[in-house]
């Protein structure tokens, strides 16, 4: 499994880029198929949310008042920090500094786990107040959006785990694999950057 790059796909993506362009596509090109697809599907969730927001303005306004923007903002900062660690880990991997890269991935993963824990605390406090998935349309969107995002975070933690194993194993790590995982993790980050104002701030 020396090189996981698919020659066909590589040729394909190089073919699309403009000649003379020294562009570099980070990671496996397959991950970009995934990222672009996720961007489109999340846009659909946002559209559904905004549509209902428009229809049921008062219900949404009132329900949004019960969320905690402080925890939402804290989670944004946690995820941004984790993205920084993961991005630095890619730099370290390219510099051949696997040990440091592995530590960066570990820190990124710790922040990601922190995000999941904070989300758990937040959900718990909403559930304790009696707001469940079935309470109203706003909480339906709230739990589905944050839940699907949390699923992506957990999957991202699996990706980070695979990256960590690659970096701390013997031999030189595959840069492309680390880039692939990092790309996925940053996607999780910027999706949350949009979800945060949408649910917590825009009332």
């Amino acid at each position, binding site marked *: 499994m020396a090189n996981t790059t698919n020659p066909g796909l590589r040729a394909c993506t190089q073919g699309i880029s403009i000649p003379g362009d020294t562009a570099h596509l980070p990671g496996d090109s397959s991950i970009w198929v995934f990222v672009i697809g996720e*961007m489109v599907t999340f846009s659909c969730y946002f559209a559904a949310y905004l549509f209902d*927001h428009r229809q049921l303005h008062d219900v949404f306004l009132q329900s949004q008042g019960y969320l905690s923007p402080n925890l939402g903002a804290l989670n944004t900062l946690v995820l941004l920090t984790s993205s920084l660690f993961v991005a630095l880990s890619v730099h370290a991997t390219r510099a051949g500094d696997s040990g440091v890269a592995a530590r960066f991935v570990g820190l990124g993963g710790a922040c990601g786990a922190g995000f999941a824990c904070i989300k758990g605390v937040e959900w718990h406090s909403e559930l304790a107040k009696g707001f469940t998935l079935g309470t109203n349309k706003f909480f339906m969107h709230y739990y589905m959006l944050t839940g699907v995002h949390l699923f992506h975070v957990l999957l991202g933690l699996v990706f980070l785990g695979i990256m960590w194993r690659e970096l701390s194993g013997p031999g030189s790590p595959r840069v492309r694999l680390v880039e692939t995982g990092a790309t996925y993790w940053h996607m999780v980050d910027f999706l949350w950057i949009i979800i945060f104002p949408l649910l917590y701030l825009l009332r």
Partner: protein
Amino acid sequence: MKGYFRSPLTYVWSLLSTITILSWWLGTRAGSHPSGLNAISAAAVVLIACVKSRLVIRNFMEVSRAPMWLRVTSDSWLALTFGMIASFYFLSR
């Protein structure tokens, strides 16, 4: 390990964190009324979210150095998504 923090990425991260706190302040303190957010704060919150997403995509995901098709795709997506958010949100007020 410390040497790696002397990277442009760290500046991007501090910018991202600062504007996150700014948008939190706008959304909860400055512009917040019982009847919702005032229009200027809301516009600022949407704009900040758009800038943040683009910073992450361009710098952390390294799309600024990626092939043209990807830069165009990601920017079009941002334009469409935030256009949709802004128009829906302001139309419903």
